[in-house]
């Protein structure tokens, strides 16, 4: 049996309606469940939740586009019906499977393009009055307190002993360059137990200790250097 033009037309109308209705239904909802579903770690992270807030808009915009397509199909019905009937293969035939895959790819392409554009516009709107430094600070979030503290208290030539397991250490290393960060090879040794000779050899003048887990606690201290 061939898939008729009318069936395709009805499906397009239904899809458009469903997308628009879903968009309105989801608007204002908490998207944590979706973040857990699509998130890399299987758990919601704040950045992803922020992005997923755009899903209702995405659904409405895509619905509107499909609506436009449905309208166009109405308009060009006469011209499209015959060629389409000739081209669309029989249900359950191998070519139909390929067409189905192609349809799926196309649908995701449309969604992906829409999401890219919506997310870009939304970000530009949010950040239009912010400088690059402010955007970086916003990206650091609470961790920006550490960046500011180090920037304000230590000179650019500072040599700092850092003790933490947080990945933040590597961002500080980049952000605060040319400050030099060192770590003691036995990572879990308290700073007070680290041999003075080792610190002197590296001319360490400052220490920074950041809590490994839980809420952010940190302590920047100047070291009485004997080198």
């Amino acid at each position, binding site marked *: 049996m061939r898939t008729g033009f009318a069936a395709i037309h009805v499906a397009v109308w239904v899809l458009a309606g469903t997308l628009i209705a879903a968009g309105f239904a989801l608007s204002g909802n908490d998207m944590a469940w979706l973040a857990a579903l*699509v*998130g*890399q*770690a*299987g758990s919601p992270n704040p*950045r992803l939740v922020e*992005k997923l807030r755009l899903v209702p808009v995405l659904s409405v915009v895509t619905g509107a586009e499909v609506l436009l397509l449905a309208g166009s199909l109405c308009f060009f019905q006469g011209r499209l019906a015959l060629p389409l009937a000739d*081209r669309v*293969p029989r249900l359950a035939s*191998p*070519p139909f*499977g*390929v*067409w189905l*895959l*192609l349809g*799926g*790819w*196309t649908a*995701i*392409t449309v969604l*992906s*393009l829409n*999401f*890219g*554009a919506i*997310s*870009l516009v939304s*970000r*530009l709107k949010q*950040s239009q009055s912010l400088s*690059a430094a402010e*955007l*970086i600070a916003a*990206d650091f979030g609470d961790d920006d307190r550490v960046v500011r503290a180090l920037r304000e208290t230590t000179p650019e030539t500072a040599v700092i002993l*850092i003790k933490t397991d947080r*990945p933040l*250490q*590597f*961002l500080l*290393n*980049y*952000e605060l*360059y*040319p400050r*030099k*960060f*060192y*770590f*003691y*090879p036995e990572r879990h040794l308290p700073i007070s137990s680290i041999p003075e000779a080792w610190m002197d050899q*590296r001319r360490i003048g400052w220490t920074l200790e950041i809590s490994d887990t839980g809420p952010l606690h940190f302590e920047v201290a100047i070291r009485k250097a004997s080198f």
Partner: protein
Amino acid sequence: MRVWLALALMQASGYLTLRALAVERSALRSMELWGLSFGAGCGILSLGMFYLAYWGIPLSPTNILILTASLLAGLIVLWIVLARRTQRRRSTSSDPSQIVESLPLAHPLSALEWTSLTVVGLCIVIVFADALSQPLLAFDARAIWAFKAKVLYFEQGIYNEAFLDADRLHAKTRYPQLIPLAETFIASVSGGFYESAFKLLFPCFYVSLLLLVSSELSRAFGRRYALLSTSLFASLPVFTIYANGGAASGYADLPLALYATALTTRLFRWLQEGSSGNLRLALLFASLTVLTKTEGLALVFIVFLATALAAWLLYGRPVRCLWPLPATALGGLICLTPWFLYQARLPVVDEDFVKLLTLENLVGGLNRLPYILRSLGKEFFFKPHLWSLLGLSAVVLFLRSPTNAVRSRFSILLWIPILYVVVLCAIFIVIPWKLEELLPVALTRLIMHIAPLLFLWICFEIGNSGHLLRKNDLSNNAPSRANP
């Protein structure tokens, strides 16, 4: 403005290098040439800068400009000499088979082709706008690649404590330096370390990859099919909207995907045409693949192994005729001797995969395999928001005719992804990390390295099945077919 100059210098260096290496005109078509030029230029300049740094010459802006000018001048002279020789040869033998077949470009574009081109254009605009609209924010882009670039730019060398002192904080000290060197090049030409400047590097790699995929498809199929497929590839969400590894993120995974795809397609062409120009290009791309990321070494090994097996089993070439393959691979690695010697001096702070990959570790870690396979399954089939229907399409097409899929002449495009996934599984089995923490953040980026090859295999498989082409005439102006 100077940023665009830096990017133009990369493109020009790459263009001239490729023209010099691919002496025969048939080895490269113009779209391939433009597609591969940026990656080749970026790589050749980075390699040149690494040689300078290795021999203790400071990476000052002046030295970098002298290097670039000498390279360009040398390549132009070489190009002129080779062009004259080729012209002389052509005038003595006017064999019509030497004329390169060109696409019927004058043929007007159909509505589908215009739509496909618009999609590709929109994807490129989104990626460039995304890159320009915000500073460098992704973790690896800052903590690993841009940190190395900062050290290289401000300390103008590789023999400093930031690289050599094991106690100095430095994420992934032993990672290859092609991307940081390219960022340093842009910073040196543009006159300052501006993140927004070198963020443009990665969308350029994305455009190059699109051109490469498109040219590879248009070589085998018609313009319409090539454009439609390229638009689907361009819009893969993993490239356009993925924040931790996408084309605007500043990660090295997309450049590695480009180099691995360039290497594979050159060897694929060598299998089909046997021209030595493709092997010279493969040598270059083998070097650049290894210099981009640690995984590059595994990829190069797998690509050459798969090509050798295909040449022997599918193309019926005697084993004794396969010597150009190991010679090319070896040549690529020899070009990187300074890098390997230098890398041996770098402290081992993170995991050392080569030492970890022992039979004992593999057997001991087999209990991790179910979790790894589940994660791979989830990645390929349940993440359409990253991979669209890539995994599903591959499996459906494979199951349609497994024997044909493995034996077809383009099956190396499938073998390489499969072998790479096997190697990844082996590494995940032995790695001393918690997989529950590692896989969710690393798997997508690792799969990205072989995604273009898998996509090309899907396109070749569908294209040769005839389901789209013959019945529905999607490829009505195909100049040739890659027959199984």
